[in-house]
Each structure stands twice: as structure tokens, then as C-alpha cells.
């Protein structure tokens, strides 16, 4: 490594700011010709330094799924949001539910989503999720009709500030079906009148 560490640090800081999407360590490494290229651990160490440097500033350098990005610290959002006249559209419940099922159950087919939600999933919702690059077709289920298998993308994780799917809020536990039946049977025995009108 012939470049000075200070210069490398400035280059990666500038690059993360200049690029419109997050940059991974690999993205950062290719900015340097081979003989000048820092190792991943060197890059990581420099990123930690930069994170320290911005400690007092209204920005933070965060790691999300596809890499590192600078973002304005959340406490300034009330003011910053005034920069835009139009508030971003709220995500509808239908869209959020569909997205949640894809996120937690991926890969899933549209029919499987419909089975869980109990209603038809509108084409517009699926299209809106594709438009945002939040979902992608990752294959086809080997059943008649070969329906598309849907999964979430890195852009989805980025949009929700997640590093990986493991960072999703835990899905509520379902009581085991066998237990449910036992329980139902027990309750039916103890309160047989309950189902009567």
C-alpha cells in the first residue's frame, strides 16, 4: 500500500458521499489500483475512524444491507422533512402486509400470499413493490403454471435501514397447531356449552 492512509480515508469518505447508493467494502476497494489497494480490515478501520469524526456532526455513517451511507441523524428529521412539499405517500396496509409476507416467508408465490391474507393480492400492489425495487422474482415454483417466486431485495433492506433479513423484527410466535387442537379439546370438555347458542 503506497498511498498514505490519510489519503485513502479521504477518498473513501468522499466516495460514500458522492455515490447515490450505499457502497460496500468491495465497492470501495476497487477505487484503488491493485498495488495501492487497502485490505478490507484496513477499510473497516478507516470507516470506524470516519464514524468517529462525524460524532459531533448532524450526520452519521451507517452500515445497511448494501454497504455504507451517510444519513442525517434522525433527530433533525422534523426540520429536514420540510424541504419537501409533498410528503412521501404512506404505504397502504395491503402493501405492507404483502411486503411483510414476502419478507418473512420468502421465496413465496402470489397464491401463497393470498392464502395467508385471505384475499386476492392486487396486481397494482405487486407492481408498486417491483417499481420500488423492493421485491424481485428469484425463481419459479415447480408446480403447474410454474408461478414466480417472490423475494425481497437489498433495496428493500436499505429502504428500511436493515443490514440483513435477520434484523427484521421477530415474527410473532404461533401456538403449535397440535397444541391448539388439544387445547380446544380440553376447553370443549370443560365448557361444552360455549358453542351452543
Amino acid at each position, binding site marked *: 500500500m503506497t498511498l498514505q492512509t490519510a489519503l485513502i480515508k479521504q477518498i473513501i469518505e468522499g466516495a460514500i458521499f458522492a455515490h447515490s447508493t450505499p457502497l460496500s467494502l468491495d465497492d470501495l476497494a476497487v477505487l484503488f489500483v491493485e498495488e495501492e489497494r487497502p485490505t478490507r480490515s484496513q477499510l473497516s478501520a478507516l470507516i470506524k475512524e470516519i464514524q468517529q469524526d462525524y460524532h459531533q456532526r448532524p450526520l452519521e455513517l451507517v452500515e445497511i444491507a448494501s454497504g455504507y451511507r451517510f444519513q442525517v441523524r434522525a433527530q433533525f428529521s422534523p426540520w429536514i422533512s420540510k424541504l419537501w412539499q409533498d410528503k412521501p405517500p404512506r404505504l397502504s396496509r395491503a402493501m*405492507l402486509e404483502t411486503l411483510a409476507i414476502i419478507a418473512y416467508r420468502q421465496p413465496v408465490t402470489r397464491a401463497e400470499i393470498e392464502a395467508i391474507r385471505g384475499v386476492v393480492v392486487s396486481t397494482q400492489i405487486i407492481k408498486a413493490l417491483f417499481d420500488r425495487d423492493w421485491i424481485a422474482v428469484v425463481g419459479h415454483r415447480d408446480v403447474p403454471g410454474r408461478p414466480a417466486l417472490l423475494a425481497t431485495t437489498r433495496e428493500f433492506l436499505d429502504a428500511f435501514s436493515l443490514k440483513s433479513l435477520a434484523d427484521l423484527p421477530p415474527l410473532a410466535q*404461533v401456538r403449535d397447531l397440535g397444541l391448539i387442537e388439544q387445547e380446544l379439546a380440553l376447553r370443549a370438555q370443560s365448557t361444552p356449552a360455549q358453542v351452543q347458542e
Partner: protein
Amino acid sequence: MSELASPADTSPIVAVNDPFYARVYGESYTKLPDDLYIPPDALAVILEAFEGPLDLLLYLIRKQNIDILDIPVAEITRQYISYIELMQALNIDLAAEYLLMAALLAEIKSRLLLPKPSQAEDDEEDPRAELIRRLQEYERFKKAAEDLNELPQEGRDIYSAHAEPPIRYLLPTEPFVGDFSLLLDAMHDVLKRAELQQSHVIASEGLSLEQRLKDILSQVKSGESIVFHRLFPAHEGRLGVVVTFMAILELLKQKMIEIVQDAVFSAIYVRQRLLEGEA
């Protein structure tokens, strides 16, 4: 994007975040009072506030604050069907799923009303089990969707910070050989300067192109890059400029020299062109 906007946004009837009830003009709305005229549109809004029959059922169950496992099927069925009937009475175009659910509930109710065969009890699944399983499953994702909505969203809660990319330079030593207009333009400037120097012009004679070719080559021979303007001796005036320029063009044509620039607005250099393989 129209499907993103909740219908509740534009109506006095608001599906509150807490999905277990709706509000009409601020009043908690849990059943359809007989004496209240509700415009059909408003009911459609209530219906749209539900994401389907499972959602409506969950709402009816939660409203009564009972465990899913304890569904009083008969009562829930009655409520559910009264909702559906009202919707139909108001000509609301119900999704087929709502009707299917009504049929399923009716079937479960009737099975539960049948006398149980005392011995075969273990073999037969409780008719509610499948419905409970589906309700539970749906409720998990309903909750997951709410959790997802709580996460910081870029553009809503999180603003990424960017800076303009740096102004780009030419790649160093990228030759622009062949861009003659560049040189011609540069010439204009040189000529202009030469004109300013006119008073210093002395009788110029014996300026030969051959000699100038050799001069320039010898200047760049050492591998040094020479600033373009330096090649033009000011005292030679206009004629000297022309001869020098012609010599440069000739050497370029013969691929003996090349013109390079390290950065925009930095000086133009002339240097010896290395042969293939020498570089």
C-alpha cells in the same frame, strides 16, 4: 400510487391505526346502529379498512376481547353475516372472499352443533382448528406489517446525505492527438500574443521548417514534456509562430510527438511520442 392512499384519508370515517375498531366522526364504531343512516360510500370505506374476511373476523373477535382459541363461533358468525348482509343490502360490491368466509363460518357452526360422536372424538379435528390456524397466521403478518411500518423508512424518517461528485479531470497523460481544432484554437491565442509582441520583431529570415522540426524534436528528446507555448519564441513574431506550428503539426502527423494535458485548464504539453512497446 392511488392504491397507496388509504381511503380513510379522504373520509370522515377513519380506520384508526389500532385496527380493531373504526371511528365515524370521532365516535367509536363497533356495530351498525339501526337508527343511523350511513351513506353507502361510508360503509364501503369501512369495508376497505379491512384487508379481507380474516381481518374482519379478527376485528370482530378482538372487539369482544376474546382469545382466538375461544372463538364463540355462533356469535361471531352472526355478527359477520350481519355485516355482510348490510353491505349487500347497500349494493356494495363485496369481494367473493367475504362470501366464502360466511359460508365457511356457517359450516363450522353447523358442525359444532351436531352431537359429537363420543368415541370418535380424537379422530376428528375440531372444525374451528383450521380457521383458528388461518386467523393466527394472518394476525402474525398483520402485526409484522405494523412492525415494518414502524421501522425508519428512507425518505420518510431517514434522509441520506450526499455531496456532489468531484469535478472530473482528464485521465492523466490521455493524449488528444488528432484533435486539431484544439490546437487551432490554441493557435489563435498564440497568434494574438505574437501580435502583442510585434514591436519586438526583428527582421526574420532563414526560418526553415526542417530546422524547426529538428529543434522541437531535440527539445523533447530527453523525454521531457515542454509547455506548448514555450515552443514559440516570442521574438520571432507571427512568421515564427506559423513555422513552429506547422512543424508541430508535421511531427504530430509523423507520430513523432504527442500533445498531452494533465488536467482541465492546466497547460498543454508537447512530448516525444514513444514507439509501441517502449512505453
